[in-house]
């Protein structure tokens, strides 16, 4: 299993008889019998002794008051988790883990990072079927974060944004609808279907405000306002904002997806043929009009 096997274990085997099919054995207790035996297979008293009240007793469930309206149901209460199953979930990813992925070369920071890249590391995954709508980049390890990246996430706190911009990076929060998410987390599977890349849908009503706010670096916000908010945040957190314009990776840092675009460099309406390695683009004016941003 490991490379640091205790040599004593191996040396012990040297002096034991040859391991063969006939003398193998599983660990004790490895195979669990999870059925209650019936009839001759152990169906007798089932741990309740012999006859009497103890063999026949049946406790009422906790809180049951023999037919009265139980105490726990007598008063109205605040349903703290009401509708929790319909709310959008954003599984967290810490800056610490992100830095680790970058250090271990699971992520190439010379290119923009999006959800597709994060899922391809094999260390982070989301399930759209469980109402996951993308990644929430949390600020754990913000002080240790050193990479200069252009990252697109679905949710980010203020201190996370500060940690990324302090290092000269760029962060955008953007919304993907469920269909686009399925495409984004496993692009190969989608391309193999041979369908045209669809348009990304706009956010639902209750998310519009978040994604059009410059303070959240929303993808629908005004770029002028975003650069002002970048300055404001640097003043608040007390760091000197590195100038992106003078950066050698300027092109990479300013690259952003269109609000209808799912992949970097691929536009809606295109068909990716993996077999022949060609991209088919629509030429019909009606189609072009349909896929236009």
């Amino acid at each position, binding site marked *: 299993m490991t*490379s*640091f096997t205790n040599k004593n274990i191996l040396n012990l085997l040297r002096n034991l008889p040859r391991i063969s099919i006939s003398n193998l054995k599983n660990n004790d207790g490895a195979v669990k019998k999870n059925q209650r035996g019936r009839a001759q297979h152990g169906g007798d008293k089932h741990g309740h002794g012999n006859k009497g009240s103890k063999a026949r007793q049946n406790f009422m469930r906790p809180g049951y008051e023999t037919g009265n309206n139980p105490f726990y149901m007598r008063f109205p209460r605040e349903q703290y988790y009401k509708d929790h199953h319909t709310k959008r979930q954003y599984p967290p990813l810490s800056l610490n883990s992100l830095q680790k992925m970058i250090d*271990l070369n699971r992520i190439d920071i010379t290119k923009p990072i999006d959800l597709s890249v994060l899922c391809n590391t094999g260390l982070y995954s989301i399930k759209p079927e469980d109402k996951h709508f993308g990644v929430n980049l949390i600020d754990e390890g913000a002080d240790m974060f050193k990479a200069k990246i252009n990252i697109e996430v679905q949710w980010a706190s203020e201190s996370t944004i500060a940690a990324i911009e302090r290092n000269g990076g760029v962060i955008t929060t953007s919304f993907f609808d469920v269909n686009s998410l399925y495409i984004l987390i496993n692009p190969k599977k989608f391309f193999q279907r041979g369908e045209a890349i669809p348009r990304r849908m706009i956010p639902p009503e209750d998310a519009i405000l978040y994604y059009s706010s410059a303070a959240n670096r929303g993808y629908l916000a005004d770029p002028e306002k975003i650069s002002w908010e970048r300055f404001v945040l640097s003043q608040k957190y007390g760091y000197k904002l590195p100038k992106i314009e003078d950066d050698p990776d300027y092109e990479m840092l300013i690259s952003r997806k269109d609000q209808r675009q799912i992949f970097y460099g691929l536009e809606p309406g295109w068909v990716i043929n993996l077999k022949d390695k060609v991209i088919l683009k629509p030429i019909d004016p009606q189609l072009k009009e349909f896929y236009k941003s």
Partner: protein
Amino acid sequence: MLNCLSRQIRALPFTFTASCRLSTLPTLENIESTEIEEPPLIYGGYTNVRQAWVSNLDTTKDNSSAIIDLHPQVFGSRPRIDIIHENVVWQRKYRYVSYANTKVTAEVCMSGKKPWPQKGQGRARHGTRRSPLFKGGSVIHGPRSHKTHFYMLPFYKRVYGLTSTLSVKLIQDDLHIVKNLDLPSDDPEYIKNLVDSRLWGPSVLFIDDTDTMPRNISLALNEIKHMNLMPVYGLNVYSMLKYETLVLTVAAVKKIQERLLYQLHRPDCNYANRKFQLNQQN
């Protein structure tokens, strides 16, 4: 595959790269030429590199002249007997279909006549002789035909099964490495004498990296029931245990190490270990 692995290893940070460097086995040509001058192979951070003699099959006497370094993750891993056992049970079961069958009452071939009148005989009431109460009647809860016992062992249990078995075979002196499978003659007696003189076997499994085996050994082993040939892609736990001795060629060792190290270090291990589905691709 090797390119893929080396790319992934290159992608790892320096310290880790040093600790899982691939074995660079000497090729057949330079085994003779550099057997003395060749510096020992370095396996990064591993201190417990396994070693084995590289022997030959072209003479009955063993002329081992070279030592081969074996990767500790493949040939010196923790010998998990329970995982070996699970592999053996799985290999027996996944291809096993039980054809045991018994008849239910409706299927029993017997007259539908009432055996005796309902009343007046002083005997118990019965409507049919097909009932399970009668001899020759149906069977209750009996086996019904075509029961498959197919299941898949989790992917990494299969991988660890191979590494555990290889390690066990090596430490128990049941694994031998040869340059190649070239024999001087196709006489079965020759290979029998060779196996006897080296205290191998009696049952031996020869493994090469290709499935087109040399002519002489193929003809010789065709006559011997308890020795067999197998390509690397057929390597499995059950066969390794069934034969007492395992003989690998240097090329086979190289390929086994390459394949198993790839599986042990692949980044998409979650994908490889996902729950098996019947319509699963690759």
